[in-house]
């Protein structure tokens, strides 16, 4: 007996918009109309519809999982949802819109392939819209959908839709981001153009939202060009009696970029030692080659001193290796960032001390122009900073590699995650020098 093979391609997307733009309703609609809801979930919805009084099923209750959210009718935190159609699996991050929780949008969007920004047809483009699009661009999300919602309340007025489209297209070129941008007029409440095509907007000839999500081309996001292997954990079985494992010394981690081959020459950074891959060990046996984003354990030809935080790279296209970093930083804490303050910086598999040596600018969210003497970065601000770390960091520009180009800042004492940083590419003098391994 056969049953349909499960789809394997996964699309991760997030939804963002201002309060009341209908994000949760939209996700509820996608789940409901794509028949991803189960009978007991529908029954629970009907139960809460009776309690809140108006008797109508509230699709937003599907994702607004916490009690405070249901009471206030808002989304506090990132909620994740999963559904599948015969064509794809979807991981949805529902990210809140009100200003104080913008940091959650960065959380929900940092790993997304696609971002849906909701615009209320009656309100048009507001500051939050521009902010969300800008953050999506900064995070390097490849695909963008502008869903113009509540078109039913705007009489499905084509002029209004086109005006919003013009407004967004007006500032997109400045951002120099997104492989494709799609504008779709919808009504999440009534379901128009979400899963089924609307009969109210004969002037719209494009796909429904779900059809677009199912077919948008997600070429491999993984960087397969340049080998980067941050060492996460040193694997040393402590079994002196076992001859086979006595000398085993493996370096475990996830490949953050490129392809690694058995017998390939590699460099260990920041030490700058050249050696060779003796074995690519996995639980299921040795491999001849492995690629990003696989997790493997490498055994090297020489007994080099390697530990967590070191990075193994190929001998071409060297990364930066320097304690001096320049980063675009999204600040996420109510205590502002100030120059000369010390933080902990986590990058790949290591955490080091870092000091903010200077604050170069702060982006003005209305014009996207830099303000050159900001003094500090407040919560939800984005700006460019210079950092010096206590140890050299092996890194790439964020635009080149989302793994080795990203970092977070942690406040010592509170242990709060206070900033998300996207590194600029290394300058030439920051490239490492190396020597062949010598015994």
């Amino acid at each position, binding site marked *: 007996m056969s049953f349909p093979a499960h789809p394997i391609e996964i699309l991760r997307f997030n939804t963002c918009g201002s309060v009341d733009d209908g994000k949760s309703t939209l996700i509820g609609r996608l789940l409901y109309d794509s028949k991803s809801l189960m009978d007991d979930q529908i029954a629970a919805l009907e139960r809460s519809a009776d309690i809140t009084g108006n008797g109508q099923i509230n699709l937003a209750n599907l994702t607004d999982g916490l009690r405070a959210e249901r009471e206030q009718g808002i989304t506090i935190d990132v909620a994740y949802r999963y559904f599948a159609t015969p064509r794809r699996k979807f991981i949805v991050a529902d990210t809140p819109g009100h200003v104080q929780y913008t940091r959650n949008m960065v959380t929900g969007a940092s790993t997304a392939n696609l971002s849906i920004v909701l615009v209320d047809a009656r309100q048009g483009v507001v500051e939050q819209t521009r902010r969300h699009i800008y953050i999506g661009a900064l995070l390097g999300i490849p695909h963008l959908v502008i869903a113009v919602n509540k078109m039913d309340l705007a009489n499905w007025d084509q002029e209004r839709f086109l005006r919003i489209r013009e407004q967004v297209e007006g500032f997109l070129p400045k951002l120099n981001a997104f492989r494709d941008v799609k504008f779709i007029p919808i009504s999440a409440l009534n379901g128009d153009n979400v899963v089924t095509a609307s009969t109210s907007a004969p002037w719209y000839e494009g796909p429904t939202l779900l059809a677009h999500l199912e077919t948008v081309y997600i070429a491999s996001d993984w960087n397969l060009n340049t080998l980067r292997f941050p060492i996460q954990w040193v694997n040393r079985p402590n079994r002196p009696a076992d001859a086979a494992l006595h000398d085993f010394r493996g370096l475990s981690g996830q490949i953050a970029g490129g392809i690694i081959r058995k017998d390939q020459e590699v460099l260990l950074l920041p030490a700058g030692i050249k050696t060779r891959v003796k074995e690519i060990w996995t639980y299921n046996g040795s491999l001849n080659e492995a690629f990003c984003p696989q997790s493997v354990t490498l055994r090297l030809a020489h007994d080099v001193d390697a530990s*967590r935080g070191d990075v193994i790279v190929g001998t071409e296209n060297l990364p930066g290796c320097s304690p001096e970093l320049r980063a675009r930083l999204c600040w996420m804490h109510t205590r502002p960032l100030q120059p000369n303050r010390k933080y902990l910086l986590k990058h790949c598999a290591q955490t080091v001390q870092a000091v903010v040596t200077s604050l170069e600018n702060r982006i003005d969210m209305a014009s996207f122009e830099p303000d050159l003497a900001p003094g500090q970065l407040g919560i939800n601000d984005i700006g460019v900073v210079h950092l010096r770390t206590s140890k050299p960091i092996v890194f790439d520009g964020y635009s080149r590699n989302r793994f080795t180009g990203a970092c977070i800042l942690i406040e010592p004492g509170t242990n709060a995650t206070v900033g998300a940083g996207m590194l600029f590419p290394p300058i030439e003098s920051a490239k490492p020098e190396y020597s062949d391994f010598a015994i």
Partner: protein
Amino acid sequence: MREVAAEFERPALLFSGGKDSICLLRLAEKAFRPSDLPMPLLNVDTGHHFAELNDFRDRRAQELGGKLIIRTVEDAIARGIAVPAPGELSRNRLQIPTLLAAIEEFGFDCLIGGARRDEEKARAKERFFSFRDAFGQWDPKSQRPEIWNLFNARIHPGEHMRAFPLSNWTELDVWEYIRREHLEVPAIYFSHKRKCVRRHSQWLPVTELLPPKDKEPVKELVVRVRTIGDIISTGMVESPAGSIDDIIREISVARVTERGSRADDKTSEAAMEDRKKAGYF
């Protein structure tokens, strides 16, 4: 997993013998072999477990050469750590103080659990690394933002972390992984004959803990479990599924969620949220 092993001094892996923690153990093998697992396995035994599950748990831990730590709700009640409310039959809430006492006893600073975001609305808001304060509480409003795969695992003494590697897995993903990895699961996941009583529109298994009431009809049905909780509130699903392939086929077309058969989640809309805030995983 490796991130936990590298960042924490005394981690533990929660292993019940249920399907999610079976996947968790395989991930641990893949992460750490050929070394030994760098952390013990921990289970809170409610005394309301299915016997099949406990047998499987013990056997699997032994096969792996892992150290298995068991703390029982029974013992926690005897020592006054967990106090049942008058008439409280389910052991669900009482797991919480038992677990927190175990964390204190061994000084665990991180617990790896098999919770998935698709199970329940409050779990949908979990992070991969979920911070718990000195009272073991979860505060959903002040969760740390989790950006890329850079996990902030820093805590102060007395606080601890819960790590959920299966966050993004669905029920179907779990069974597909079990099939792909040829993992053994306890027999109660497959269809078998069992005496059941009908309560709150669910079939509950008849046991010493849940004898039929006077004149209550008892039916012998062909059933299996889809999710395993307290034996007095785990609904049995009528099913002929006798193999992993059957189960995958069954849940591919299922119309009820996995936790639809757990009476504990139906108590109120916020049941899981409240238990999580108190220290449930």
